[in-house]
Protein backbone atom coordinates (compact mmCIF):
# COMPACT_ATOMS: atom_id res chain seq x y z
CA UNK A 1 0.00 0.00 0.00
CA UNK A 2 1.61 3.20 -1.12
CA UNK A 3 1.84 6.27 1.03
CA UNK A 4 -0.30 8.18 -1.48
CA UNK A 5 -3.04 5.73 -0.58
CA UNK A 6 -2.70 6.83 3.00
CA UNK A 7 -2.94 10.48 2.06
CA UNK A 8 -6.07 9.73 0.12
CA UNK A 9 -7.49 7.86 3.10
CA UNK A 10 -6.57 10.75 5.36
CA UNK A 11 -8.34 13.14 3.04
CA UNK A 12 -11.43 10.92 2.95
CA UNK A 13 -11.36 10.56 6.72
CA UNK A 14 -11.18 14.26 7.36
CA UNK A 15 -13.86 14.91 4.80
CA UNK A 16 -16.09 12.22 6.28
CA UNK A 17 -15.56 13.20 9.91
CA UNK A 18 -15.83 16.89 9.14
CA UNK A 19 -19.02 16.58 7.13
CA UNK A 20 -20.50 14.13 9.63
CA UNK A 21 -19.82 16.55 12.45
CA UNK A 22 -21.25 19.42 10.47
CA UNK A 23 -24.41 17.52 9.58
CA UNK A 24 -24.75 16.23 13.12
CA UNK A 25 -24.52 19.76 14.46
CA UNK A 26 -27.06 20.98 11.94
CA UNK A 27 -29.50 18.12 12.54
CA UNK A 28 -28.64 17.38 16.13
CA UNK A 29 -29.01 20.92 17.41
CA UNK A 30 -32.69 21.37 16.56
CA UNK A 31 -33.37 17.78 17.63
CA UNK A 32 -31.62 18.31 20.95
CA UNK A 33 -33.41 21.61 21.39
CA UNK A 34 -36.75 20.03 20.68
CA UNK A 35 -36.00 17.17 23.04
CA UNK A 36 -34.94 19.54 25.77
CA UNK A 37 -38.24 21.37 25.52
CA UNK A 38 -40.88 18.67 25.22
CA UNK A 39 -42.59 17.74 28.41
CA UNK A 40 -44.60 14.70 27.36
CA UNK A 41 -43.77 11.07 28.04
CA UNK A 42 -43.11 10.72 24.37
CA UNK A 43 -39.77 12.38 25.08
CA UNK A 44 -38.63 9.20 26.77
CA UNK A 45 -39.07 7.19 23.59
CA UNK A 46 -37.38 9.78 21.49
CA UNK A 47 -34.42 9.69 23.85
CA UNK A 48 -34.29 5.91 23.69
CA UNK A 49 -34.46 5.93 19.89
CA UNK A 50 -31.65 8.43 19.58
CA UNK A 51 -29.49 6.22 21.78
CA UNK A 52 -30.29 3.02 19.87
CA UNK A 53 -27.61 3.09 17.13
CA UNK A 54 -25.18 2.51 19.97
CA UNK A 55 -26.58 -0.84 20.92
CA UNK A 56 -26.04 -2.71 17.66
CA UNK A 57 -22.52 -3.81 16.77
CA UNK A 58 -21.25 -1.53 14.00
CA UNK A 59 -21.03 -4.27 11.36
CA UNK A 60 -24.55 -5.39 12.13
CA UNK A 61 -25.82 -1.85 11.97
CA UNK A 62 -23.87 -1.54 8.74
CA UNK A 63 -25.54 -4.65 7.38
CA UNK A 64 -29.03 -3.31 8.04
CA UNK A 65 -28.12 0.06 6.61
CA UNK A 66 -26.78 -1.67 3.53
CA UNK A 67 -30.11 -3.49 3.17
CA UNK A 68 -31.85 -0.13 3.22
CA UNK A 69 -29.36 1.55 0.89
CA UNK A 70 -29.43 -1.27 -1.64
CA UNK A 71 -31.25 -0.42 -4.89
CA UNK A 72 -33.51 -3.42 -4.24
CA UNK A 73 -35.10 -1.61 -1.29
CA UNK A 74 -37.55 1.24 -1.74
CA UNK A 75 -35.41 4.00 -0.21
CA UNK A 76 -32.33 2.78 -2.04
CA UNK A 77 -34.21 2.65 -5.31
CA UNK A 78 -35.64 6.10 -4.75
CA UNK A 79 -32.15 7.43 -4.17
CA UNK A 80 -30.80 5.72 -7.27
CA UNK A 81 -33.63 7.06 -9.41
CA UNK A 82 -33.29 10.56 -8.00
CA UNK A 83 -29.54 10.98 -8.04
CA UNK A 84 -28.42 8.46 -10.59
CA UNK A 85 -26.05 6.68 -8.28
CA UNK A 86 -26.44 4.05 -5.61
CA UNK A 87 -26.26 5.02 -1.97
CA UNK A 88 -24.44 1.81 -1.12
CA UNK A 89 -20.66 1.99 -1.52
CA UNK A 90 -20.73 5.72 -2.06
CA UNK A 91 -19.32 8.51 0.03
CA UNK A 92 -22.85 9.74 0.67
CA UNK A 93 -23.69 6.30 1.99
CA UNK A 94 -20.92 6.20 4.57
CA UNK A 95 -21.73 9.77 5.46
CA UNK A 96 -25.32 8.82 6.26
CA UNK A 97 -24.10 5.77 8.14
CA UNK A 98 -21.68 7.81 10.23
CA UNK A 99 -24.32 10.40 10.95
CA UNK A 100 -26.71 7.77 12.26
CA UNK A 101 -24.02 6.00 14.21
CA UNK A 102 -22.64 9.12 15.90
CA UNK A 103 -25.98 10.84 16.46
CA UNK A 104 -26.29 10.12 20.18
CA UNK A 105 -22.86 11.55 20.93
CA UNK A 106 -23.90 14.88 19.56
CA UNK A 107 -27.54 15.02 20.59
CA UNK A 108 -27.19 13.96 24.19
CA UNK A 109 -24.59 16.48 25.39
CA UNK A 110 -26.45 19.25 23.60
CA UNK A 111 -29.77 18.22 25.02
CA UNK A 112 -28.39 18.21 28.55
CA UNK A 113 -26.78 21.59 28.00
CA UNK A 114 -30.03 23.06 26.75
CA UNK A 115 -31.92 21.61 29.67
CA UNK A 116 -29.50 22.96 32.20
CA UNK A 117 -29.58 26.38 30.58
CA UNK A 118 -33.10 27.03 31.82
CA UNK A 119 -35.05 29.95 30.54
CA UNK A 120 -34.27 32.78 32.89
CA UNK A 121 -31.77 34.38 30.59
CA UNK A 122 -33.87 33.60 27.53
CA UNK A 123 -36.80 35.42 29.06
CA UNK A 124 -34.55 38.42 29.52
CA UNK A 125 -33.65 38.14 25.83
CA UNK A 126 -37.30 38.01 24.82
CA UNK A 127 -37.99 41.15 26.81
CA UNK A 128 -35.32 42.88 24.74
CA UNK A 129 -37.26 41.99 21.56
CA UNK A 130 -35.00 39.12 20.53
CA UNK A 131 -37.10 36.51 18.75
CA UNK A 132 -36.48 32.81 19.19
CA UNK A 133 -33.93 32.51 16.37
CA UNK A 134 -32.12 35.58 17.59
CA UNK A 135 -32.13 34.24 21.15
CA UNK A 136 -30.81 30.94 19.98
CA UNK A 137 -27.87 32.39 18.12
CA UNK A 138 -27.01 35.22 20.46
CA UNK A 139 -27.73 33.62 23.82
CA UNK A 140 -28.12 29.86 23.74
CA UNK A 141 -25.26 29.21 21.35
CA UNK A 142 -22.58 31.26 23.12
CA UNK A 143 -23.72 30.07 26.53
CA UNK A 144 -23.57 26.41 25.54
CA UNK A 145 -20.44 26.76 23.45
CA UNK A 146 -18.53 24.34 25.67
CA UNK A 147 -21.13 21.65 25.16
CA UNK A 148 -21.11 22.23 21.43
CA UNK A 149 -17.38 21.67 21.47
CA UNK A 150 -17.81 18.48 23.49
CA UNK A 151 -20.52 17.29 21.13
CA UNK A 152 -18.55 18.14 18.01
CA UNK A 153 -15.34 16.57 19.28
CA UNK A 154 -17.09 13.39 20.41
CA UNK A 155 -18.85 13.17 17.06
CA UNK A 156 -15.68 13.87 15.10
CA UNK A 157 -13.49 11.46 17.06
CA UNK A 158 -16.08 8.76 16.94
CA UNK A 159 -16.36 9.04 13.18
CA UNK A 160 -12.59 8.94 12.78
CA UNK A 161 -12.38 5.79 14.86
CA UNK A 162 -15.40 4.06 13.41
CA UNK A 163 -14.80 1.51 10.75
CA UNK A 164 -17.32 -1.28 11.15
CA UNK A 165 -20.19 0.63 9.62
CA UNK A 166 -18.02 2.41 7.08
CA UNK A 167 -16.34 -0.75 5.89
CA UNK A 168 -19.62 -2.58 5.47
CA UNK A 169 -21.53 0.08 3.60
CA UNK A 170 -18.55 1.73 2.00
CA UNK A 171 -16.70 -1.23 0.56
CA UNK A 172 -13.25 0.25 1.08
CA UNK A 173 -13.02 2.07 -2.25
CA UNK A 174 -9.86 4.20 -2.36
CA UNK A 175 -10.59 7.90 -2.67
CA UNK A 176 -14.25 7.35 -2.06
CA UNK A 177 -14.94 5.28 1.01
CA UNK A 178 -11.56 4.08 2.22
CA UNK A 179 -10.81 5.87 5.43
CA UNK A 180 -7.78 5.90 7.68
CA UNK A 181 -9.25 3.55 10.26
CA UNK A 182 -9.74 0.90 7.56
CA UNK A 183 -6.24 1.46 6.28
CA UNK A 184 -4.90 1.05 9.77
CA UNK A 185 -6.86 -2.12 10.29
CA UNK A 186 -5.61 -3.46 6.96
CA UNK A 187 -2.05 -2.97 8.05
CA UNK A 188 -2.61 -4.83 11.26
CA UNK A 189 -4.34 -7.66 9.43
CA UNK A 190 -1.66 -7.75 6.80
CA UNK A 191 0.92 -7.97 9.56
CA UNK A 192 2.60 -4.71 8.49
CA UNK A 193 3.16 -3.82 12.09
CA UNK A 194 5.65 -1.04 11.62
CA UNK A 195 3.34 0.77 9.21
CA UNK A 196 0.41 0.12 11.51
CA UNK A 197 2.23 1.50 14.53
CA UNK A 198 3.34 4.50 12.58
CA UNK A 199 -0.18 5.15 11.29
CA UNK A 200 -1.74 4.64 14.72
CA UNK A 201 0.74 7.05 16.25
CA UNK A 202 0.00 9.61 13.56
CA UNK A 203 -3.73 9.21 14.11
CA UNK A 204 -3.37 9.58 17.85
CA UNK A 205 -1.01 12.51 17.73
CA UNK A 206 -2.98 14.23 15.00
CA UNK A 207 -6.24 13.78 16.87
CA UNK A 208 -4.65 14.81 20.11
CA UNK A 209 -3.35 18.01 18.59
CA UNK A 210 -6.72 18.68 17.00
CA UNK A 211 -8.63 17.99 20.20
CA UNK A 212 -6.17 19.99 22.23
CA UNK A 213 -6.57 22.92 19.88
CA UNK A 214 -10.33 22.73 20.15
CA UNK A 215 -10.25 22.48 23.92
CA UNK A 216 -7.71 25.24 24.12
CA UNK A 217 -10.07 27.55 22.30
CA UNK A 218 -12.78 26.56 24.67
CA UNK A 219 -10.54 26.80 27.68
CA UNK A 220 -9.54 30.36 26.98
CA UNK A 221 -13.16 31.16 26.67
CA UNK A 222 -14.16 29.42 29.85
CA UNK A 223 -11.41 30.93 31.93
CA UNK A 224 -13.08 34.26 31.63
CA UNK A 225 -16.65 33.22 31.99
CA UNK A 226 -17.86 30.73 34.49
CA UNK A 227 -21.56 30.12 34.28
CA UNK A 228 -23.37 29.19 37.34
CA UNK A 229 -26.55 27.35 37.83
CA UNK A 230 -28.92 28.64 40.38
CA UNK A 231 -32.34 27.78 41.74
Amino acid at each position, binding site marked *: MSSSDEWLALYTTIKLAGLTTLILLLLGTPLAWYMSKIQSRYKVFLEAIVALPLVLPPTVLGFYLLVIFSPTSTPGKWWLDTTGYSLAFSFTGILIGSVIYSLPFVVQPLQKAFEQLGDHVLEAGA*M*LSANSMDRFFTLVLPMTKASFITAASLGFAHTVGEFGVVLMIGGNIPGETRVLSIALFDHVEALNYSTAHWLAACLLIGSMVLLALIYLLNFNHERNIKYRMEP
Partner: protein
Amino acid sequence: MSTLAVSEAPQAIQRDLSVDVNLSFDSFQLSCDIRFDLNGITGILGHSGSGKTSLLRVIAGLNRDAAGTVILKQRTLQSDTQFIKPEHRKIGFVFQDARLFPHLSVAGNLEYARKRCKPNSLDANEIIQMTQIGALLKRDVVKLSAGEKQRVAIARALLAEPELLLMDEPLSNLDNRARRDMVHLLRLIHQRLNLPILYVSHNIIEIQQLADEVLVMENGRIIQVGHVHQVLNNLNERMSTEFSSPTSLTLKVKQHLVNFGLTQLDFMAPSHNQVKLFAPLMNQPLGQQLRCYILADDLSISLNKPEASSIINCLPGRISQLHRLSRNGMLIKVQVMEHTFAINTSRYAVELLRLSHGTEVFIQFQADAIRCY
Protein backbone atom coordinates in the same frame (compact mmCIF):
# COMPACT_ATOMS: atom_id res chain seq x y z
CA MET B 1 -64.34 35.63 34.84
CA SER B 2 -63.41 35.36 31.22
CA THR B 3 -67.00 35.66 30.00
CA LEU B 4 -67.30 38.77 32.09
CA ALA B 5 -64.24 40.15 30.40
CA VAL B 6 -65.62 39.57 26.95
CA SER B 7 -68.81 41.39 27.71
CA GLU B 8 -66.88 44.30 29.11
CA ALA B 9 -64.30 44.37 26.36
CA PRO B 10 -65.52 47.49 24.50
CA GLN B 11 -65.26 49.49 27.68
CA ALA B 12 -61.86 48.02 28.43
CA ILE B 13 -60.47 49.37 25.21
CA GLN B 14 -60.96 52.89 26.49
CA ARG B 15 -58.13 52.48 29.01
CA ASP B 16 -54.49 52.08 28.16
CA LEU B 17 -53.84 48.77 29.86
CA SER B 18 -56.48 46.22 30.55
CA VAL B 19 -55.61 42.95 32.22
CA ASP B 20 -58.21 40.31 32.89
CA VAL B 21 -56.43 37.09 33.66
CA ASN B 22 -56.61 33.98 35.73
CA LEU B 23 -53.61 31.89 36.59
CA SER B 24 -53.39 28.98 38.98
CA PHE B 25 -50.36 27.51 40.62
CA ASP B 26 -50.53 24.60 43.02
CA SER B 27 -51.16 26.76 46.00
CA PHE B 28 -51.68 30.18 44.57
CA GLN B 29 -54.23 31.76 42.32
CA LEU B 30 -53.74 35.01 40.47
CA SER B 31 -57.00 36.58 39.47
CA CYS B 32 -56.97 40.10 38.12
CA ASP B 33 -59.50 42.16 36.26
CA ILE B 34 -58.29 45.67 35.97
CA ARG B 35 -58.09 48.54 33.52
CA PHE B 36 -56.11 51.69 33.96
CA ASP B 37 -54.44 54.56 32.18
CA LEU B 38 -50.79 54.34 31.48
CA ASN B 39 -49.78 57.94 31.51
CA GLY B 40 -47.24 57.71 34.25
CA ILE B 41 -45.57 55.42 36.67
CA THR B 42 -47.91 52.92 38.25
CA GLY B 43 -46.77 51.49 41.54
CA ILE B 44 -47.62 47.99 42.67
CA LEU B 45 -47.55 47.32 46.39
CA GLY B 46 -48.13 44.05 48.13
CA HIS B 47 -46.63 41.63 50.56
CA SER B 48 -44.16 38.96 49.64
CA GLY B 49 -45.94 36.24 47.72
CA SER B 50 -48.98 38.34 46.89
CA GLY B 51 -48.49 37.82 43.15
CA LYS B 52 -46.75 40.99 42.00
CA THR B 53 -44.10 39.20 39.96
CA SER B 54 -46.71 36.81 38.58
CA LEU B 55 -48.84 39.74 37.38
CA LEU B 56 -45.89 41.37 35.61
CA ARG B 57 -44.98 38.05 33.99
CA VAL B 58 -48.48 37.64 32.63
CA ILE B 59 -48.46 41.13 31.17
CA ALA B 60 -45.05 40.47 29.62
CA GLY B 61 -46.34 37.25 28.07
CA LEU B 62 -43.89 35.11 29.98
CA ASN B 63 -46.60 32.90 31.33
CA ARG B 64 -48.49 31.16 28.56
CA ASP B 65 -50.64 29.28 31.02
CA ALA B 66 -52.43 32.44 31.99
CA ALA B 67 -55.96 32.48 30.63
CA GLY B 68 -57.59 35.77 29.81
CA THR B 69 -57.12 39.03 28.01
CA VAL B 70 -54.35 41.60 28.06
CA ILE B 71 -54.84 44.75 26.00
CA LEU B 72 -52.15 47.41 25.84
CA LYS B 73 -52.88 50.70 24.10
CA GLN B 74 -55.71 49.16 22.06
CA ARG B 75 -53.43 46.32 20.97
CA THR B 76 -54.70 42.92 22.09
CA LEU B 77 -51.60 41.18 23.42
CA GLN B 78 -53.48 38.14 24.51
CA SER B 79 -56.98 36.81 24.37
CA ASP B 80 -58.73 33.48 24.11
CA THR B 81 -57.80 33.33 20.46
CA GLN B 82 -54.60 35.26 20.29
CA PHE B 83 -51.20 35.31 21.93
CA ILE B 84 -48.57 37.81 20.97
CA LYS B 85 -45.14 36.50 21.88
CA PRO B 86 -43.22 38.35 24.57
CA GLU B 87 -40.59 39.53 22.12
CA HIS B 88 -43.22 41.28 20.02
CA ARG B 89 -45.01 43.00 22.87
CA LYS B 90 -42.55 45.88 23.03
CA ILE B 91 -42.49 45.56 26.77
CA GLY B 92 -39.34 45.90 28.84
CA PHE B 93 -38.77 43.96 32.04
CA VAL B 94 -36.31 44.61 34.84
CA PHE B 95 -36.35 41.31 36.69
CA GLN B 96 -36.10 40.91 40.43
CA ASP B 97 -32.85 39.06 39.75
CA ALA B 98 -30.87 40.98 37.18
CA ARG B 99 -30.66 38.25 34.49
CA LEU B 100 -27.72 39.71 32.67
CA PHE B 101 -26.23 37.73 29.80
CA PRO B 102 -23.25 35.97 31.38
CA HIS B 103 -21.27 35.59 28.16
CA LEU B 104 -21.27 39.28 27.39
CA SER B 105 -19.50 42.16 29.08
CA VAL B 106 -21.49 44.99 30.59
CA ALA B 107 -21.11 46.91 27.34
CA GLY B 108 -22.18 43.80 25.42
CA ASN B 109 -25.33 43.55 27.51
CA LEU B 110 -26.21 47.15 26.79
CA GLU B 111 -25.46 46.77 23.10
CA TYR B 112 -27.68 43.74 22.95
CA ALA B 113 -30.62 45.90 23.93
CA ARG B 114 -29.50 48.80 21.78
CA LYS B 115 -29.21 46.78 18.58
CA ARG B 116 -32.73 45.45 18.84
CA CYS B 117 -34.31 48.81 19.36
CA LYS B 118 -35.07 50.69 16.19
CA PRO B 119 -35.26 54.44 16.70
CA ASN B 120 -32.61 54.82 19.43
CA SER B 121 -33.87 58.11 20.72
CA LEU B 122 -32.00 57.90 24.01
CA ASP B 123 -28.36 58.80 24.37
CA ALA B 124 -26.63 55.67 25.62
CA ASN B 125 -23.83 57.61 27.23
CA GLU B 126 -26.24 59.62 29.26
CA ILE B 127 -27.97 56.52 30.58
CA ILE B 128 -24.62 54.93 31.36
CA GLN B 129 -23.55 57.99 33.22
CA MET B 130 -26.76 58.32 35.14
CA THR B 131 -26.78 54.69 36.20
CA GLN B 132 -23.11 55.11 37.14
CA ILE B 133 -21.91 52.09 35.28
CA GLY B 134 -19.37 53.88 33.12
CA ALA B 135 -16.48 52.31 34.99
CA LEU B 136 -17.94 48.84 34.61
CA LEU B 137 -18.43 48.75 30.84
CA LYS B 138 -15.62 46.34 30.07
CA ARG B 139 -16.26 44.08 33.05
CA ASP B 140 -17.68 40.57 33.00
CA VAL B 141 -21.17 40.67 34.35
CA VAL B 142 -20.67 37.59 36.50
CA LYS B 143 -18.10 39.47 38.54
CA LEU B 144 -20.27 42.43 39.42
CA SER B 145 -21.62 43.12 42.87
CA ALA B 146 -25.36 42.79 43.38
CA GLY B 147 -26.02 46.50 43.17
CA GLU B 148 -23.86 46.85 40.10
CA LYS B 149 -25.81 44.10 38.39
CA GLN B 150 -29.06 45.80 39.19
CA ARG B 151 -27.91 49.08 37.72
CA VAL B 152 -26.73 47.39 34.54
CA ALA B 153 -30.09 45.62 34.25
CA ILE B 154 -31.91 48.93 34.55
CA ALA B 155 -29.69 50.60 31.97
CA ARG B 156 -30.18 47.68 29.62
CA ALA B 157 -33.95 47.78 29.93
CA LEU B 158 -34.04 51.53 29.36
CA LEU B 159 -31.81 51.35 26.30
CA ALA B 160 -34.28 48.96 24.71
CA GLU B 161 -36.78 51.84 24.80
CA PRO B 162 -39.90 49.72 25.21
CA GLU B 163 -43.44 51.04 25.06
CA LEU B 164 -44.10 49.85 28.56
CA LEU B 165 -41.54 49.07 31.20
CA LEU B 166 -42.14 46.53 33.95
CA MET B 167 -39.84 46.87 36.93
CA ASP B 168 -39.81 44.22 39.64
CA GLU B 169 -38.22 45.66 42.76
CA PRO B 170 -35.45 47.11 40.66
CA LEU B 171 -33.72 48.99 43.45
CA SER B 172 -33.76 46.40 46.20
CA ASN B 173 -30.00 45.99 46.22
CA LEU B 174 -29.14 49.66 46.08
CA ASP B 175 -28.25 52.02 48.85
CA ASN B 176 -30.17 55.23 49.48
CA ARG B 177 -27.97 57.38 47.34
CA ALA B 178 -28.05 55.09 44.33
CA ARG B 179 -31.75 54.60 44.88
CA ARG B 180 -32.34 58.34 44.84
CA ASP B 181 -30.30 58.68 41.66
CA MET B 182 -32.26 55.91 40.02
CA VAL B 183 -35.59 57.40 40.99
CA HIS B 184 -34.42 60.65 39.47
CA LEU B 185 -33.32 58.83 36.32
CA LEU B 186 -36.60 56.98 35.97
CA ARG B 187 -38.59 60.15 36.31
CA LEU B 188 -36.44 61.83 33.68
CA ILE B 189 -36.75 58.91 31.28
CA HIS B 190 -40.43 58.74 31.85
CA GLN B 191 -40.80 62.40 30.96
CA ARG B 192 -38.48 62.26 27.99
CA LEU B 193 -39.85 59.12 26.33
CA ASN B 194 -43.34 59.26 27.73
CA LEU B 195 -42.57 55.72 28.83
CA PRO B 196 -45.19 54.26 31.15
CA ILE B 197 -43.77 52.12 33.92
CA LEU B 198 -45.29 49.46 36.12
CA TYR B 199 -43.21 49.56 39.22
CA VAL B 200 -43.24 46.85 41.90
CA SER B 201 -41.67 47.86 45.17
CA HIS B 202 -41.82 47.16 48.86
CA ASN B 203 -40.58 50.60 49.56
CA ILE B 204 -43.41 53.01 50.10
CA ILE B 205 -41.07 55.99 49.77
CA GLU B 206 -40.05 54.88 46.32
CA ILE B 207 -43.68 54.45 45.37
CA GLN B 208 -44.53 57.87 46.74
CA GLN B 209 -41.73 59.50 44.89
CA LEU B 210 -42.39 57.75 41.61
CA ALA B 211 -45.91 56.54 41.20
CA ASP B 212 -49.00 58.34 39.98
CA GLU B 213 -51.36 55.41 40.14
CA VAL B 214 -50.97 52.63 42.69
CA LEU B 215 -52.27 49.06 42.81
CA VAL B 216 -52.25 47.11 46.02
CA MET B 217 -52.19 43.33 45.73
CA GLU B 218 -53.03 40.68 48.23
CA ASN B 219 -53.35 36.93 47.74
CA GLY B 220 -53.27 37.19 43.99
CA ARG B 221 -55.97 39.87 43.84
CA ILE B 222 -55.82 43.58 43.38
CA ILE B 223 -57.48 44.95 46.46
CA GLN B 224 -57.00 48.66 45.84
CA VAL B 225 -56.39 50.88 42.83
CA GLY B 226 -56.22 54.61 42.41
CA HIS B 227 -54.18 57.74 42.49
CA VAL B 228 -51.20 57.49 44.74
CA HIS B 229 -52.52 59.90 47.43
CA GLN B 230 -55.90 58.38 47.40
CA VAL B 231 -54.56 54.86 47.74
CA LEU B 232 -51.89 55.61 50.27
CA ASN B 233 -54.29 57.71 52.38
CA ASN B 234 -56.78 54.90 52.35
CA LEU B 235 -54.57 51.92 52.91
CA ASN B 236 -56.55 49.69 55.16
CA GLU B 237 -55.58 49.40 58.75
CA ARG B 238 -53.17 46.52 58.42
CA MET B 239 -51.45 48.09 55.49
CA SER B 240 -51.10 51.49 57.07
CA THR B 241 -49.35 50.18 60.11
CA GLU B 242 -46.81 48.66 57.80
CA PHE B 243 -46.46 51.47 55.33
CA SER B 244 -46.96 55.02 56.45
CA SER B 245 -49.38 57.25 54.67
CA PRO B 246 -48.57 60.55 53.04
CA THR B 247 -50.34 63.76 52.31
CA SER B 248 -49.97 65.02 48.82
CA LEU B 249 -49.90 68.61 47.58
CA THR B 250 -49.06 70.53 44.50
CA LEU B 251 -46.94 73.56 45.34
CA LYS B 252 -45.26 76.33 43.40
CA VAL B 253 -41.69 77.57 43.81
CA LYS B 254 -41.77 81.12 45.19
CA GLN B 255 -38.28 81.99 46.27
CA HIS B 256 -34.88 80.43 46.99
CA LEU B 257 -33.22 81.25 50.28
CA VAL B 258 -29.87 80.03 49.15
CA ASN B 259 -28.03 81.04 52.27
CA PHE B 260 -30.31 79.00 54.42
CA GLY B 261 -30.63 76.09 52.07
CA LEU B 262 -34.36 76.56 51.84
CA THR B 263 -36.86 77.05 49.10
CA GLN B 264 -40.07 78.85 49.85
CA LEU B 265 -43.12 77.26 48.31
CA ASP B 266 -46.64 78.58 47.80
CA PHE B 267 -49.95 76.89 47.55
CA MET B 268 -51.41 77.09 44.09
CA ALA B 269 -54.39 79.25 45.06
CA PRO B 270 -53.22 82.89 45.33
CA SER B 271 -55.49 83.47 48.32
CA HIS B 272 -53.33 81.28 50.54
CA ASN B 273 -50.15 83.11 49.92
CA GLN B 274 -49.97 84.56 53.37
CA VAL B 275 -48.90 81.08 54.53
CA LYS B 276 -45.18 80.45 54.22
CA LEU B 277 -43.93 76.95 53.42
CA PHE B 278 -40.27 76.04 53.42
CA ALA B 279 -38.71 73.00 51.84
CA PRO B 280 -35.03 72.07 51.48
CA LEU B 281 -33.31 74.11 48.77
CA MET B 282 -34.10 72.62 45.38
CA ASN B 283 -32.82 73.24 41.92
CA GLN B 284 -36.09 74.34 40.33
CA PRO B 285 -36.98 77.53 38.45
CA LEU B 286 -39.21 80.06 40.16
CA GLY B 287 -42.87 79.45 39.43
CA GLN B 288 -42.31 75.73 38.81
CA GLN B 289 -45.14 73.54 40.02
CA LEU B 290 -44.15 70.55 42.14
CA ARG B 291 -45.94 67.49 43.36
CA CYS B 292 -45.00 67.09 47.00
CA TYR B 293 -45.67 64.52 49.69
CA ILE B 294 -45.61 64.77 53.45
CA LEU B 295 -45.65 61.57 55.46
CA ALA B 296 -48.24 61.39 58.22
CA ASP B 297 -45.45 60.47 60.60
CA ASP B 298 -43.61 63.70 59.86
CA LEU B 299 -46.46 65.95 60.93
CA SER B 300 -47.45 67.03 64.41
CA ILE B 301 -50.35 68.99 65.83
CA SER B 302 -50.48 71.72 68.46
CA LEU B 303 -53.32 73.85 69.74
CA ASN B 304 -51.34 77.09 69.94
CA LYS B 305 -49.11 78.50 67.31
CA PRO B 306 -45.69 77.37 68.49
CA GLU B 307 -43.08 80.05 68.72
CA ALA B 308 -39.34 79.87 68.70
CA SER B 309 -39.34 76.30 67.51
CA SER B 310 -36.92 74.82 65.06
CA ILE B 311 -39.94 73.40 63.30
CA ILE B 312 -40.13 75.68 60.37
CA ASN B 313 -43.54 75.10 58.86
CA CYS B 314 -46.73 75.77 60.72
CA LEU B 315 -50.17 75.86 59.15
CA PRO B 316 -53.49 76.66 60.80
CA GLY B 317 -56.32 74.27 60.12
CA ARG B 318 -59.35 72.48 61.43
CA ILE B 319 -59.71 68.81 62.21
CA SER B 320 -62.02 67.19 59.68
CA GLN B 321 -61.64 63.53 60.59
CA LEU B 322 -60.36 61.37 63.41
CA HIS B 323 -59.64 57.87 62.37
CA ARG B 324 -58.67 55.10 64.68
CA LEU B 325 -55.96 53.22 62.88
CA SER B 326 -55.05 50.64 65.42
CA ARG B 327 -55.50 50.05 69.10
CA ASN B 328 -53.51 53.11 70.00
CA GLY B 329 -52.78 54.86 66.73
CA MET B 330 -54.95 57.64 65.37
CA LEU B 331 -54.92 59.16 61.94
CA ILE B 332 -56.17 62.74 62.02
CA LYS B 333 -57.15 64.63 58.89
CA VAL B 334 -56.73 68.37 59.16
CA GLN B 335 -58.31 70.69 56.63
CA VAL B 336 -55.96 73.55 55.77
CA MET B 337 -57.92 75.63 53.32
CA GLU B 338 -58.92 73.17 50.64
CA HIS B 339 -56.07 70.76 51.41
CA THR B 340 -56.32 67.75 53.65
CA PHE B 341 -53.31 66.73 55.71
CA ALA B 342 -53.03 63.27 57.25
CA ILE B 343 -51.29 63.14 60.60
CA ASN B 344 -50.35 60.08 62.58
CA THR B 345 -50.60 60.49 66.29
CA SER B 346 -51.40 58.54 69.40
CA ARG B 347 -54.66 58.25 71.28
CA TYR B 348 -52.86 59.71 74.26
CA ALA B 349 -52.14 62.93 72.43
CA VAL B 350 -55.70 63.08 71.17
CA GLU B 351 -57.09 62.77 74.67
CA LEU B 352 -54.51 65.09 76.17
CA LEU B 353 -55.23 67.84 73.69
CA ARG B 354 -58.94 66.95 73.61
CA LEU B 355 -58.86 66.86 69.85
CA SER B 356 -62.15 66.31 68.14
CA HIS B 357 -63.93 67.03 64.95
CA GLY B 358 -63.77 70.78 64.25
CA THR B 359 -60.95 71.61 66.66
CA GLU B 360 -58.79 74.43 65.41
CA VAL B 361 -55.17 73.31 65.39
CA PHE B 362 -51.77 74.11 63.97
CA ILE B 363 -49.95 71.48 62.04
CA GLN B 364 -46.19 71.59 62.10
CA PHE B 365 -43.47 69.99 60.07
CA GLN B 366 -39.79 70.35 59.26
CA ALA B 367 -38.57 71.63 55.93
CA ASP B 368 -37.38 68.22 54.87
CA ALA B 369 -40.73 66.66 55.57
CA ILE B 370 -41.77 68.15 52.24
CA ARG B 371 -40.71 65.52 49.76
CA CYS B 372 -40.76 66.33 46.09
CA TYR B 373 -40.14 64.42 42.93
